[in-house]
């Protein structure tokens, strides 16, 4: 057991873990307020990745630049549209109907990607964030490193927003008790719009960052989404800190299993963790 290898795996795991956390955050916000699990979440991630990719390839705008100026605002808008066209209508439906509707959206997004851009794996080359640097004998990828930094900033911003601004507190109030929030004058539907917008823009952010160093293909959303579901349960539904903790744990677990066992076992490890947590402590680590 080479200590350097373990350490390397952990570093990589932390980096990808931050991305998982960002993805999970959007999911947990939507769940916390609307009690809907967005089964299309991963496919929005995929779209964010493709958007970033093509903006770079066709208009030559680097992902780092397109992130805040193009991808995130557009993702926010997509979120608003998503709520208006789909989520709004399934709020009061049976669970199975909600699952189907969000899943349907995901399938449509996947099929669009498949049709226009084929199942080919694509990777970006020549972007600003590339290369590695060495630190105490460990190789750290520059894109992964910057990604982690940006994710941390994003999470701090979100944390500040949710805890120190009036709107953010309104969102948290809605998560805790919808009826009570409505009674004190919070416009619940506006909250819903906002939360979905934020959730999808977070996923757009994650997609943009990933495109710097990850393969882009129509099904890429799937694995991230599956892990995100596990994370929000691990961390406790509606809990921001839980999403962070869960993301990091999962990132490290998958990275270690990937390094030492057959990469296929990443899935098994993750899902076993999920099954164990829900059976032993259903409220999750964040606990609510």
């Amino acid at each position, binding site marked *: 057991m080479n200590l350097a290898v373990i350490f390397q795996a952990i570093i990589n795991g932390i980096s990808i873990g931050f991305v998982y956390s960002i993805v999970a955050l959007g999911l947990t916000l939507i769940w916390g307020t609307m009690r809907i699990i967005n089964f299309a979440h991963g496919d929005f991630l995929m779209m964010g990745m493709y958007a970033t990719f093509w903006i770079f390839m066709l208009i030559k705008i680097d992902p780092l630049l397109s992130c805040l100026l193009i991808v995130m605002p557009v993702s926010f808008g997509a979120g608003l549209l998503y709520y208006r066209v789909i989520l709004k209508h399934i709020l009061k439906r*049976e669970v*199975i109907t909600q*699952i189907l509707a969000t899943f349907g959206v995901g399938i449509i997004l996947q*099929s669009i990607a498949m*049709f226009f851009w084929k199942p080919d794996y694509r990777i970006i080359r020549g972007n600003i964030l590339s290369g590695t640097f060495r630190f105490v004998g460990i190789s750290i990828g520059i894109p992964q490193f910057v990604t982690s930094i940006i994710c941390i900033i994003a999470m701090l911003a979100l944390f500040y927003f949710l805890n120190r601004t009036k709107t953010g507190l309104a969102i948290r109030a809605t998560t805790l008790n919808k009826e009570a929030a409505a009674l004190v004058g919070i416009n619940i539907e506006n909250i819903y719009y906002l939360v979905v917008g934020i959730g999808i823009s977070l996923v757009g952010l994650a997609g943009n960052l990933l495109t710097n160093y990850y393969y882009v293909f129509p099904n890429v959303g799937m694995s991230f989404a599956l892990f995100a579901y*596990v994370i929000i349960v691990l961390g406790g539904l509606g809990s921001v800190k839980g999403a962070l903790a869960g993301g990091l744990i999962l990132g490290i677990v998958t990275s270690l299993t990937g390094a030492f066992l057959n990469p296929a076992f990443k899935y*098994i490890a993750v899902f*076993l963790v999920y*099954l164990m947590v829900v059976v032993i402590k259903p409220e999750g680590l964040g606990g609510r």
Partner: protein
Amino acid sequence: MHFSNFQNNKTMKKFILFLIVILIIIFPTIITQPYILHIMIMVFIYAILGGAWNILSGYAGQVSLGNAMFFGLGAYASSVLWLFYNINPWIGMIIGGLFAVAFGIFLGMPVFRLRRQYLAIATIAASQIIMTIFLNWEYVKGASGLALPLMPNSLKHMTFLYGKNGFYFISLAILIFFTFVVFVITKTKLGYYFRTIKEEEDSARSIGINTTQYKLVAISITAFFSAIAGTVYAQYFLYIDPNMVFSLRVSFLIVLISAFGGTATIFGPILGACVLIPINEMARMFFGGAGRGIDLFSFGILILVVAIYRPAGLVSLFYGKEKLAIRENLPGKDGKVDGENENIES
């Protein structure tokens, strides 16, 4: 909404149903194109799968998004027994069914503590784990899959190398039997208990329902018939691999068929299969690789339309006014929707 005499007349519907069954039975004598018969076989198999899912997830309300695991376990169980141990596929089918039941109970015991989406995700997790195991398990040849023994044609060995009629009638017979089972369930204690568990689990316990026990019964029925469908599938194609039988795509197709046709109904899954499976099969045939986007796209649109506009599913097109009102939350008999205050006492 046009309510013709047809929709409101029960005897007429039963008669039409009877005619349809007769027609389906004599179908292969009229239409002999192998491709069409192939589609029918796939419709029957998926109708069974959809119906089986419907027991656990439609009637009992425990939504599973990983039913492919039962399907695949059945397929692999009978195939392994046939290939390595020379056990007749019919017997292997029953053994596979029982094996799937055992697995379902084993999975259900911890997992049925969960509700709603938490449970659904757990079923995804379980089926992914199963798939990963089979992809990496040397004994069943991993991702390469199993090629089943090529025997001479015989009913005894569930092998029909030439012509589709054999599997047409086998799968149809199983579907009819299974539909009958569902019908019986809905009319008896099991059916009532399943529905109560789905609707209001907490008070169900207080009126004497051991909810865990009955959920396990539900998953057993689901697992058994899904596994049987798996055996028929394996014997039909004479080849299986983990991606064919365990994938999420299969699980979601099963869910889609039932939901599109109408959950918690006897004919919903059958109807759903009749519409969606031909689309699935034809898209695969005619569009090939790039066209995979198109069949996915149409499925996605169909799912959305049903989920948003007609959650009761396709079956509701055949409902009379009263039944539709019930399923679609329209005004009830008095014209009232929510309970409005009225004078008490009978």
